[in-house]
């Protein structure tokens, strides 16, 4: 397979995994962080969900990283193609470049912030 197409195949594979992540892991995160805590619904009594999750140093950090990075990748990848289909076809290259930039910066950012919050993650359990 030509190099560029092979890269695209792998990028698509990651997008596909991101779809599973966004389907199976994102709903509960949105609920906990965005709805249950601010509105005081179960199971958030007093602690905010992010702190509670991050109390589990390894599992919690892994969960947040996988869910946020996977969902961001999937969302941006797919949104790019809708923009193309809505008539912005000629700007496709530019849109893809911006999209991948947001993805890379976003994933680096989430890794960075999670490591700052839980530096012990890098040492094995």
């Amino acid at each position, binding site marked *: *397979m*030509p190099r*560029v*197409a*092979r*890269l*695209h*195949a*792998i990028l*698509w*594979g990651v997008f*596909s995994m991101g779809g599973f992540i966004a389907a199976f892991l994102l709903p509960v995160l949105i609920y906990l962080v965005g709805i249950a805590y601010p509105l005081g619904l179960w199971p958030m009594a007093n602690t905010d969900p992010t702190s509670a999750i991050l109390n589990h140093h390894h599992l919690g950090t892994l969960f947040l990283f996988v869910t946020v990075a996977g969902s961001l990748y999937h969302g941006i990848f*797919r949104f790019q*193609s809708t923009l*193309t*289909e809505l008539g912005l*076809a000629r700007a496709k290259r530019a849109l893809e470049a911006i999209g991948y930039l947001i993805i890379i910066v976003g994933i680096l950012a989430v890794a960075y912030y999670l490591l700052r919050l839980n530096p012990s993650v890098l040492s094995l359990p």
Partner: protein
Amino acid sequence: MSQDIATIRVTRYRPEKDGEPYFQDYKVPYRKDMVVLDALNYIKANLDGTLTYRWSCRMGVCGSCGANVDGVPKLTCASFLHDFRGRTIKVEPLPNFPVIKDLVVNMDDFMHKLVEIKPWIIREKESPPEEGEYRQRAEELERYAQFSSCINCMLCYSACPVYGLNEKFLGPAATALAYRYIQDSRDQGKDVRFPIVHELEGVWECTLVGECSVVCPKGVDPMLAIQKTKILGATNALKSLLMPRGGK
């Protein structure tokens, strides 16, 4: 004796005269079980001999008579008039293809793609006839049988907005046919076909709209073929990344 009349509104385009297509209405005596193709034939025989369109078998196996019937890509030989009872039936050329004249579209792009994917069994070495046939079990046949039903009618290309937006997209039928051969146990042409379907404008352009599978008159599921081909491509790319020398 009163007779039901059906109004057929057909796109007319005469390239030597018209800058743009226009509609022309024809009143056709309606008989039960008439299909749009019957109406077109009646018009050509009795009302307007200049009406130009493609057709052949009139029974849904040749794939010649594709048109946009009431906004949906259909075979005119499979579109019953009684489904449109009381309404004017609009018959337009298949979308996403350039119009040569009236309902006749330019199929060159599709024909080119069809040949590109090499729709025949590719063997590393042909077995001599004395060795007999290539044997195939029922389960092996089932893996590709559905995709061999394609009659090349191009309705799927007309239904596909991705193809409508990007003519370079390989498209549903070509990919489904490539997949049909990739899945055929007798075929050894993966190395030839994979680069074609996995190029940038191959399967990766597909965003799973799925309309191709909805309009296919023969029950082929091109969306499924494209999706499976994407998975093959992704696993292939991963394999070649992890095992650059071994593994095929």
